């Protein structure tokens, strides 16, 4: 039997004796290279071997200790190579998406703090979040607002407390940092817009850069996204609702983060499930083309648009059957829910951060 091992290729007889051996040089880097390429070799052993004994038999090493030390060194070197090979572009997209989420969280907290603090000095300022941070960073005290600025009237008649120089410095500093965070967020957004086209041209075409990036991030990589069935793509980001559905009798979610796609958002509620399915299947297709296939193919998008058009034509009116069971659902609003309520069941599928996966009206996955 011919067998490839990490230290060379052996021919082993039925009773386990080494008949022939072609050994490699005892150079860790060379051995690591071989270990890596051998992992797909057709002559890999078909069952485990007493490699240590074989290595001693054919005089690759003289002592067991030498075997251990060399094997360890080679394995560590191999693994380090493997790790550096796994750096792919979609990893950077994932980091960017997650960094954006972190920034949103941080910016929210900091801007709330700024609102509270600056509110002591200038409660009439009706700005929030970024405009507020920009305002404070620029002017500091309300007395610095120049005539002609649209806040001038409010600033000069404010009931707020006086702002000492020290406090002004501090607040301005704080606001400037916050502005920096907002700038970083824009950079990240830009990065995703610029790079998604190269990382996943087809997914970007179908889903758009931000949504495509988010799907890749939630899936854990472009390859994983491509490996998912499209029914999974349809509900990525709605895991809470999905598991509630599997565990109890809650309705299944119709859409996860793909809800943010204009085709779904812009559809009336009774079409959304159908559109979501069509969209998910095309995203799956696009991801697979991006991973295994070739360049950008505009026909996927055209097919999707045709399909959605057909859905719109086939279902122009809300289904009648449901309206007897359901209190009138406001299209596009979280109004409708089944009359028959089940114990303890909350409205399924509301994800944190407003990525809605609402189970409107009867809530069957359409």
């Amino acid at each position: 039997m011919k067998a490839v091992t990490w230290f060379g290729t052996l021919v082993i007889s039925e009773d386990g004796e080494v008949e022939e051996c072609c050994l490699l040089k005892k150079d860790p880097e060379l051995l690591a290279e071989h270990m890596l390429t051998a992992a797909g070799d057709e002559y890999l052993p078909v069952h485990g071997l007493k490699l240590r004994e074989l290595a001693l038999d054919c005089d690759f090493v003289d002592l067991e200790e030498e075997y251990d030390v060399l094997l360890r060194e080679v394995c560590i070197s191999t693994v380090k190579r493997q790790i550096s090979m796994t750096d792919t572009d979609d990893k950077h997209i994932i980091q960017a998406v997650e960094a954006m989420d972190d920034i949103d969280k941080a910016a929210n907290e900091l801007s709330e703090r700024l609102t509270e603090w600056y509110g002591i000095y200038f409660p009439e300022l009706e700005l929030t979040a970024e405009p507020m941070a920009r305002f404070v960073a620029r002017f500091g005290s309300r007395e610095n607002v120049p005539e002609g600025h649209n806040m001038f009237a409010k600033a000069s008649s404010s009931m707020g407390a006086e702002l000492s120089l020290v406090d002004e410095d501090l607040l301005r500093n704080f606001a400037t940092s916050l502005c920096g965070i907002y700038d970083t967020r824009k950079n990240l957004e830009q990065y995703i817009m610029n790079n998604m086209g190269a990382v996943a041209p087809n997914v970007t075409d179908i889903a758009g850069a931000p949504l495509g990036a988010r799907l890749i991030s939630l899936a854990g990589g472009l390859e994983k996204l491509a490996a998912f069935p499209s029914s999974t793509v349809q509900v990525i980001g709605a895991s809470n609702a999905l598991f509630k559905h599997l565990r109890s009798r809650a309705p299944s979610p119709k859409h996860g983060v793909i809800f943010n796609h204009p085709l779904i958002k812009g559809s009336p509620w009774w079409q959304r499930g159908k559109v979501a399915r069509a969209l998910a299947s095309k995203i799956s297709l696009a991801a697979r083309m991006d991973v295994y296939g070739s360049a950008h193919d505009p026909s996927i998008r055209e097919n999707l648009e045709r399909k959605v058009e057909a859905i719109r034509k086939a279902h122009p009116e809300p289904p009648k059957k449901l309206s007897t069971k359901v209190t009138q659902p406001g299209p596009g609003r979280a109004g409708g829910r089944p009359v028959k309520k089940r114990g303890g069941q909350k409205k399924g599928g509301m994800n944190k951060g407003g990525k809605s996966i609402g189970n409107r009206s009867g809530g069957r996955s359409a």
Partner: protein
Amino acid sequence: MSIEQLSDGIFEVITDDRKILATRNLYPGHSVYGERLMDVDGVEYRQWDPHRSKLGAMVLKGFDIPIEYDSHVLYLGAASGTTVSHVSDILADGLVYAVEFSPRTMRDLIKLCDQRPNIIPILADANKPRSYAHIVETVDVIFQDVAQPNQAEIAANNSKYFLENDGHLMLSIKSRSIDTVANPKKIFKDEVKKLESDFGVEFEVLQRKELDPFHEDHLGVLARMFVEDED
């Protein structure tokens, strides 16, 4: 503080009010994941948190740990090396092959390997034992903690390849990764049954216990591989 040995390399440090599971630190002065280091009679021990380690929980649940100081162990699902570090402590004169599939966690594991001479890291899929058959020799013990839906199959296939005749398999079965909704007890029963006969290799289950309160919905299994006489 005094010390009591439970099995090869596994100790309990006895303080005034409690007993702490620990292993002798192979790399003194260094803590791997923030665990406590304790000095007893000039020897340094590392606390072994059973809540973070299935193997640690199995020790406290009364399993007869088959790992001896000079064993060769194949560890499937090494993750970032929390448990592997304790196995490495136990194996004063042995070796552990640590298989992990995720490059991200391997990044942490490799740091541990740099410090300890008896861990051999392998970045590979435990589903495909053949892809590391050119590296791993036959071993005395296989420990598996992979949280995959086909855990029994993975264990059986690796045993077929790498387990010594009469070698031991230690397995942690996580019911949640097989079916999130079904009853864990039923899953455990099915998985053990599958393991015993479904994959062309037979096991004799020596011990099986649930790992609560340390790990919920996990079953620990200790089995010995049966090898039929060929004639």
